[in-house]
């Protein structure tokens, strides 16, 4: 029987997250053809992403407020990023948020995608829609709904929990609980999207693999660990990196729910960028903080790529 189970790697090899070069000969390696495919996107990204990024980079060496006079200040803004206690605290808060949000969102999404993919699940379409709905609601409204539910005086959730003897208190004004709460709201809001990506990834796994494993007598757990999860590693790496980038840019629900408080305990780095840029009109400094964030994200992502790239090679 085992002869009918093809070596998955030979038949269907998930490429490494960033690499993925394989031995299939390519007929066309000419730049002009690639350029034709890339041109529309590159025009848009060049004008509306690359150019603004360069502008922001230039601004990061000035004291610009976005309008009017500005002067060159060299590396002053960057020096301030690493000495300003509020920025340093915001970096710490962002790290905490990323640690709370990223694994939770990815795992919740994965588990629910696996459950939705389970052949025994009744009412699949209903559950799929219900679980995706939070993603469809705008984050400002979602944050509003949660604040309303969690309100210490008139919040429904607090009221219900009091009914069963749990005093939740004012979670959004508690310096230790506020960050977990805003991270939880973000998990609630975004897991549906990651879940759908996992679902798409799960559908890519050839049914023949699973059937063969069943014939081989593998139980559900073995199938999950030895077939489903390895085949999903590519999707997993993608979701993880996207969720990490999102976590490091946490802003919307915090802006609406806590405004960075209490006592700056939910002040993330993008909150800091927004406040310096748009409220205090220090666009040059805000641009410098943005570039520091870019550098940090880039390093973390590369670590992740290397980690997954190595695992990929080890698996082969």
């Amino acid at each position, binding site marked *: 029987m085992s002869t009918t189970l093809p070596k998955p790697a030979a038949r269907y090899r998930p490429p490494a997250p960033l690499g993925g070069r394989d031995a299939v000969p390519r007929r066309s390696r000419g730049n002009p053809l690639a350029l034709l495919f890339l041109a529309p996107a590159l025009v848009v990204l060049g004008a509306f992403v690359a150019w603004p990024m360069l502008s922001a980079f230039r601004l990061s060496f000035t004291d610009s*407020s*976005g*309008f*009017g*006079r500005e002067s060159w200040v060299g590396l002053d803004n960057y020096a301030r990023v690493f000495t300003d206690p509020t920025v340093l605290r915001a970096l710490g808060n962002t790290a905490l948020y990323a640690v709370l949000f990223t694994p939770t969102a990815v795992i919740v999404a994965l588990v629910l995608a696996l459950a939705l993919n389970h052949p025994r699940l009744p009412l699949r379409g209903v559950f799929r829609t219900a679980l995706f709905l939070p993603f469809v609601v705008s984050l400002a409204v979602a944050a509003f709904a949660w604040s309303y539910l969690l*309100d*210490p*005086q*008139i919040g429904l959730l607090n009221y219900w929990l009091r009914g069963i003897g749990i005093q939740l208190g*004012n979670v959004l*004004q*508690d310096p230790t609980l506020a960050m977990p709460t805003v991270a939880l709201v973000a998990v609630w809001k975004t897991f549906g999207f990651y879940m759908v990506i996992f679902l798409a990834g799960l559908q890519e796994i050839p049914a023949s693999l699973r059937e063969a494993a069943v014939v081989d007598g593998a139980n559900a757990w073995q199938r999950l660990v030895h077939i489903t999860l390895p085949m999903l590693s590519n999707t997993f790496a993608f979701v993880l990196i996207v969720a990490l980038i999102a976590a490091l840019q946490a802003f919307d629900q915090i802006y609406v729910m806590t*405004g960075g*408080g*209490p*006592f*700056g305990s939910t002040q993330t780095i993008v909150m800091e960028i927004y*406040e310096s*840029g*748009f*409220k*205090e*009109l220090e*666009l040059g400094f805000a641009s410098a903080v943005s570039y520091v964030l870019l550098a940090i994200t880039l390093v973390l992502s590369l670590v992740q790529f290397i980690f997954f790239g190595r695992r990929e090679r080890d698996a082969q």
Partner: protein
Amino acid sequence: MRKTATAALAVMAAGALALTGCSPAQTESEGPTTVTFWHGYTEADGDVLEQIVDDFNASQDEVVVETEVKTWDVIDDTLLPALSAEEGPEIVAMPAERMPVYADKGAFVDLSEFYADDENAAAVLPAAADMVTADGAQFGVPTGFVPLSVFYNRALFEAAGITTFPTTWDEWVDVATKLTVDENGDGTPEQYGLALPDHATVANGLWPSLFYGGGGDIVADGEAVIDSPENVDTLEYWSNAVATNKISPTGLDGIGADELFSSGKAAMHVGGPWMASISDANDIDYGIAAIPAGPEEQAASAIGVGMGVTAQADDAQIDGAEAFFSYFLSQDVATEWSLGSGWPPLRGDIPASAVESNPVVASLTEIAGTARPLLPGVTGSVDVLSAVDTATQKALAGGDPAALLSDAQAEIEAALAD
């Protein structure tokens, strides 16, 4: 699939073209100067303001003021990009405490000559004019200036047998204690005597008001003075009142306090004129009173709104904007605006009798003399207010007022130094 996508694209493109067909009219040509005016008056006050603008446009043929209504938050979020691309308004209204930040960066035209030459501008309440002044030069014109006041729930007062509104802090705490009800005795009252927010208070004005009452201040003559002994006493007084008598929940912000009052769970609330319409909508029979006097003074922080001329305006537009300001501040229009907006008149020479047709305005006009502008001319107001918030919120959560105010002092000194 591709066919449908192409077709859909074509439809979209056609739709986009059709919708953009109405391009903006040329403003550079001969004829009246056009001045764009952004403001955030979205309620009945907005209707009155539109009427005033229409009347102004009809009264002369040099200038046409065109309004664009946004909310105050939206103005604050979009003004910077608009200014950066010179796509912004020539006149913009915003909460007065936000104006010095923009003025400091050169966003507003200096109006000191206008104030010196125009008799209507000269008639503006001095305290209201202070609000739009930095380093001795005016960068704007007030559109609203009103002291914070206490809104109280008459039904709850009656139920507790209280007939007169308190006039001193001790009486105030006493009344608030009587109005605090903890029926089931679990330590969490079902009804609070007072909604006393400890951060992000209405117009950031509650704690400044209390500090004034105790004889203190936050910033005086450009120096941080928040760690004064008077302020320590004030903060101790109120955190004790909340801790011992449970007159207010802690961790409350201004909007939470508004909600607590409008849900009937708090008998008193320090708020702005808009609480009148919110109370009406929630069927709450309310009264308005001045914030009771502190041991040293009776004073209240003002909620202020002002408008300025942005630096992108050309000379003709600056003249046009000043003409509009002069019209807006003239006696009749100022009275009309006061009645329509529900805020007290901006001029000192309008008698209370002129606005008695609106009882809310009349009550607020009576106490208008207690109003003080919040942090006039302080460009680092965001950081200053956040330092105050941290101190008050931590104090009400049980922290030591003296230590907290000395932390705040250091933060405010740093903010003022920037």
